[in-house]
Every structure is written in C-alpha cells, then in structure tokens.
C-alpha cells in the first residue's frame, strides 16, 4: 500500500480501503468499498494537501459529465485536511496496460471500437463545456481487456488540477516540461497549442489528444515520440506517417485507411481545422467493425511460411498469414485473435502478435 491510507482503514465512516490501485502525478487512487451502499468504488485523494481547493473545483467539473463512456462521479468529501473524490469503479486497467501492455498495437477492428466509444464519452463532456486537457492512455479505463466490455474516460477532475502544473511546466520551456512528472506522461498526447499557449487551450486540444492516442493504438507508438524530442516535433506538427503494416494488408486496408484519415484530421496543427467531438461521433458511427470475442493463443506450427495453427485453450485454430495485422508472429509467440467455425479447425481472423 502507498499514500496516506492502509488497507481496511475506513474513510468518513463509509469507505473502506481495500487496496491501492495506483498513483498519477497528482493523486493516489484506491479500491474501496462503500459500506453504506455495499458496492465497490474508486477513491481518489490528492497527494498534495495544498491542492485541495482545486481538487474540489475539479470534482464539481467532473460531476457535470454523465455518460456510459465516462467514469461516474459518485461522491466528494472533506475529512480533516484531506479531500476525497469517489468514482465509479471499473474492473480492469487503464488503456495503456489493458491493451498496449499486452500488444504493441491493436488491429483496426478493435481500434475502431475504442475510437467510437472514446469520442462518445468526449462528446458528452464537450456538450457541457468541459475540456479534459489531460487525455492519455492512463486516463481511460478499460473493463474486460481485449473484449472491451467497458471503456470509460476518467480523471476529468484531475485534468483541471493538472492544468496549473502543466501550464507552469509549459511556460517554463522544455526543461521544466521534462522535469514535471505530470507533463512527461501527458506530453506525447499534448496538442501544439497546449505546449505553446497553455492558457488558451480549448475543446480542440482534446481532439488532438484522441488522435494521438488512436495513432499509438494502431501503430504502436505515439505520433511524435516521447520526451524532449517530442516537444519540437509536436510544435512542428508535420502529419505523421503511419508504419506500412497499417494499410499494406488488403483485408485491413479499407478500415485502416478510414481510421488513419480520421486520426490525421484530429492531428491538424491548426486547432480550428480539427473535427469537433460530435463530427467524430458521426464519422465513427459509419465505421464497420465486427463485435466478436477475442482469444489469446500460442503459435503451435507454421507451414510453408504461409499458414499454421494456433493453440487456443488446448484446441487448434487455423490461421493464414494474410490475417495477421502487423509483425509476423513466429513459432511459440503469443497472439490475440478472433475465431470462426471451420472444417477440421476453426479459422482465426484477425491475428495480432502479443508482447
């Protein structure tokens, strides 16, 4: 356990600390049990007691956003000199861990679904005038791993809180950006204007961040890299190239092309030229993607360098390399796949190599 609380401590007579979930630059996050309503919740408390006032303001902002793709704000309380935000608990992990922790990138079907749900949640927040400001993979919770049973944007509150630190860091130039823990995590997803004129950031900065996250999901790395080098590249904002595997496979190309078009629109240097969240929702609802269960297996055999079998829960599933998105898996590599009925063995499609 980390932070101010130990397991089984009870906050305000109502929330029992069950475990430590993690920490952002600004806050500790616990898994807790709401004893009054007998349900699991996420309990957040700022690391720095002086941030209290902003934490409260940020909670109020977060509570305005109400959508299935946004983690619900359930409660806010002050106990002594500590503040707490209670949020809907999502059983799972953040987008970074849940998807990119297992795969370098994901196939366009899965990516399209993530995109669609993310922009739905973002549109709901933009409808009530709330700019997230700190959208990044660690601020999106995913339930059910590759099955994507839930996709929820979180930490709207903390965005407001991080605001000042991000602004200070950005105004202090490259050195202070790379020495601020909050800024370093957010940097690869920050819009050019969020670095250059951080006090003038509008809804369109979130659109950029979604574009940067989606770029990373389909291609395996953030569009402008990480660290100090990213600052210059983001400010330049040359449209990023996609690795060739994104569109080289005829089976994925139609959807991949649609996705990369949308991503590049989000990454327009001129904030005015980026689509609105509502426009993105409209475009994402035109994307075609199947809703099929995902499995994890191991490459068991490869024949003629063209096809082979994947062992999935002790059963062989046929695959062809034409169904692979991205790097070709080798013998004994772990892969993620969907499977469909076939003669002799089921057939896998798509197949993505895992880390």
């Amino acid at each position, binding site marked *: 356990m980390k932070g101010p609380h130990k397991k089984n401590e009870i906050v305000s007579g109502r929330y029992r600390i069950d475990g430590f979930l993690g920490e952002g630059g600004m806050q500790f996050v616990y898994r807790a049990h709401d004893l009054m309503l007998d349900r699991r919740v996420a309990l957040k408390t700022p690391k720095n007691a002086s941030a209290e006032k902003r934490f409260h303001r940020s909670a*109020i902002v977060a509570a305005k956003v109400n959508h299935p793709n946004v983690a619900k704000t359930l409660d806010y309380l002050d106990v002594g000199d500590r503040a707490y935000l209670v949020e809907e608990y999502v059983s799972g992990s953040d987008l970074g861990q849940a998807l990119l922790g297992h795969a370098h990138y994901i196939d366009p079907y899965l990516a399209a679904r993530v995109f669609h749900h993310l922009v739905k949640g973002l549109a709901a927040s933009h409808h009530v005038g709330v700019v997230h400001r700190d959208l990044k993979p660690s601020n999106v919770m995913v339930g059910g791993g590759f099955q994507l049973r839930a996709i929820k944007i979180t930490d709207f509150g903390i965005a407001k809180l991080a605001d000042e630190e991000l602004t200070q860091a950005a105004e202090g130039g490259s050195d202070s950006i790379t020495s601020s823990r909050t800024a370093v995590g957010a940097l690869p997803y920050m819009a050019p204007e969020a670095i250059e004129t951080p006090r003038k950031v509008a809804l369109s900065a979130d659109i950029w961040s979604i574009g940067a996250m989606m770029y990373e999901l389909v291609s395996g790395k953030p569009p402008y890299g990480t660290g100090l080098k990213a600052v210059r590249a983001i400010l330049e904002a040359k449209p990023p190239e996609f690795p060739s595997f994104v569109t080289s496979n005829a089976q994925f190309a139609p959807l991949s092309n649609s996705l990369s078009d949308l991503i590049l629109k989000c990454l327009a240097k001129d904030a005015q030229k980026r689509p609105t969240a509502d426009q993105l929702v409209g475009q994402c609802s035109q994307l075609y993607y199947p809703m099929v269960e995902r499995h994890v297996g191991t490459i068991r055999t490869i024949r003629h360098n063209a096809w082979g079998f994947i062992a999935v829960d002790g059963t062989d599933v046929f695959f062809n390399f034409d169904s692979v998105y991205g790097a070709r898996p080798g013998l004994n590599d772990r892969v993620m796949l*969907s499977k*469909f009925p076939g003669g002799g063995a089921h*057939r896998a499609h798509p197949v993505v190599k895992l880390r």
Partner: protein
Amino acid sequence: MARSTKARFVLPTRYKPEGAGSSGGFGHVTFCRDLHLDRLVAIKFIQDPAESRRLKDEFQALLTLRSKHVVQVYDLVPGPEDTVGIVEEFIPGKDLFESDIPSSLNEYLRAIWQIASGIADIHEAKIIHRDIKPNNMKFDGEGIIKIFDFGLARAEGAEAVTKNFVGTRGFAAPELYGTNTVPFSRAVDTYAFGATALYLATRNLPKNILQQPPSALADGTFRGLNLGLRSSLADLLQATMEHDPAQRPLMSTIRDKIARQLLRGKHQALTVLNGKASYLNARNRVVKLELPSVGKIEISYDMYRFKVTAVSGEVAINNKPVVVGQEIPGSCVVALGGGHRQWFQRAYVTFDVSHPEVVL
C-alpha cells in the same frame, strides 16, 4: 443528527432543498442541491415506515445493478420517523409521457430498445420494477433513457405478492387487479413495457387497455401502427400484452429483436479477391464467385445475414462443404477448387462481416 426529534427531521447540510417536491408511487420526492458536488439530486422518502427496512434491502439489489438505463443511487439519508431517504441522480427535462412522438422509425426503435435494455438489466438483477410507464423514464442530456422511481420495486420470489392494487391504469397488467392476494412476476413489467411502447408510438392508449382491469389488446394493434415496424417485431411487441403472463416474451428477447431491426440493412461484408476489396451491403446485395468449370457460389445479403443462395462444383467455406441457405460465419475464406488441384487451379476469397454497433 437527523433523528433528533420525531416530528421534525433535518437533512444533512450537504443537501439544500430546491424547488417543490412531489409525491408518486409509495414515496415523496424532494429535490435538493448537493453542495459537495454542486449538482441536483432527487431524495426519495418511503412513506410507510414499516416498508422502509424491507425496501432498503431491496434497494441493495438495485445498487449492485449496473445499467446505463437506471438512475444512479448516490447516498442514503435518514428521514422522518426512522424512514430512509434515497439520494438519486436527478435528470432534468420532460419525462417520456410528455415527450413528442418519435420523428422516425429509427428514433422510435432506439427509444424502445433502450427501455427494453433497462428492464432486461433490472430483471437480470432479479428485481421487478412494478411501475414501468413513460412517466418514470427520461432522456438525459445525452439522449440516454433512464428509468427511475423504484418505489414499488420488489425482489422476485415468495414475497412478490400484493393485496391492494398498486400500479398505474393503462400500464398495470391484468393480473394485478385481483381482490385477493395476487402473486405476480417480472411479466408485469413486460406488459407495462408493451403499453409504454404503444403509448410512445401514438401518445395514447386504446380504451380497453385503460379499463380496470384492462381487456385484451385488439389483434394486430402493433402491426397497425404506421411506423414501418417489421411484422415479426410487431407481433413480438403484441405478445408483450398477452393476458396470460406466461405467454409474454422475456425482456432480453425483446431487446435483441429490436436491435435486430435497428441494425437491419446496416451490415457489411468486405470481400477480398487477389488483393482487391469489394463490399456486399444493402446497396450491393448479391455476389457471384466463379472459377469456370471448377465451381461457383452466390452469396446474398438479406438485410440481416449473409447467406449462400446458390452453389455448385468444388466450393468450401473455411474448409467445410457448403449448402444452400447456410449463413456465412463472421469471417471466412471461400475456396473454389478442391484440395487435389494445383494452386493455380484454385481461387480464395476472404469474407469479413461487420456492422455498426448500437452505441448510445
């Protein structure tokens, strides 16, 4: 603090009453501003103190229920005379009783699909709502329907009996109008769903449905709605208002059938032959693949599924023999030419079936 006197009670200071309250179901509602989060909440007090404890138990089931279509419970507060107040999410705006007739079939289907999804979630948690009606539903700011007023809700089982009629005329199932103790099941919600679906389409209910108890819904009422409902869906909706509760379909079945029509014509199959992509969809519904003197196959989209409509010669789908009428699995390879032939005498076509998700 709140229980200091019996006659008067005081709300916790975080809840500041705003506007007038109202009464409905078994309870009284007070609208308050939650000062901690600066948002409006509805606080519902159960009027019968004897009911309070049991209702709290049943609310427990409701609390563990996760549904996009049920209002969120935030808190419990002590009320007057040992009662409990339930602090809920407040949804501003008109309820569905006052809403406009849907402007399109799609809008109507999305509305009843959401309601059916919400009730299916409630039933899955083994709760009977008992007061499903358009007045107890609202669209939130994002167009998502939320069901509220669980004041009459009951857990399923032996305790699901009632002595006096409770419910709402027009929406209460016929079996609820007994003079003796009446057992009831989740099918009362199904009936009320049917009446709600009928009301939303017409902003009215037929006279015989408004009788107490209601008499049978005229045959073909849903088919007669001028909405463009598919007849199979109209018949399923008609069945929700069957007099015999056992004849009413499950809410999960209804939800899935509505989704089926909602997604009608919206599927797409991507076919790739020699690296070239083409689509099979509502605009382009038939594809014929042929390798002369080896084999041929025709695949058609019937607006719901992709099916084999003709086949001859050597054809396999995912390495399996093909019969007319079979559905194409979500993703597959069609092979023309048997395994005994050389590669240049065979052709492979990949098929990928997908559809837009019902995303709210």
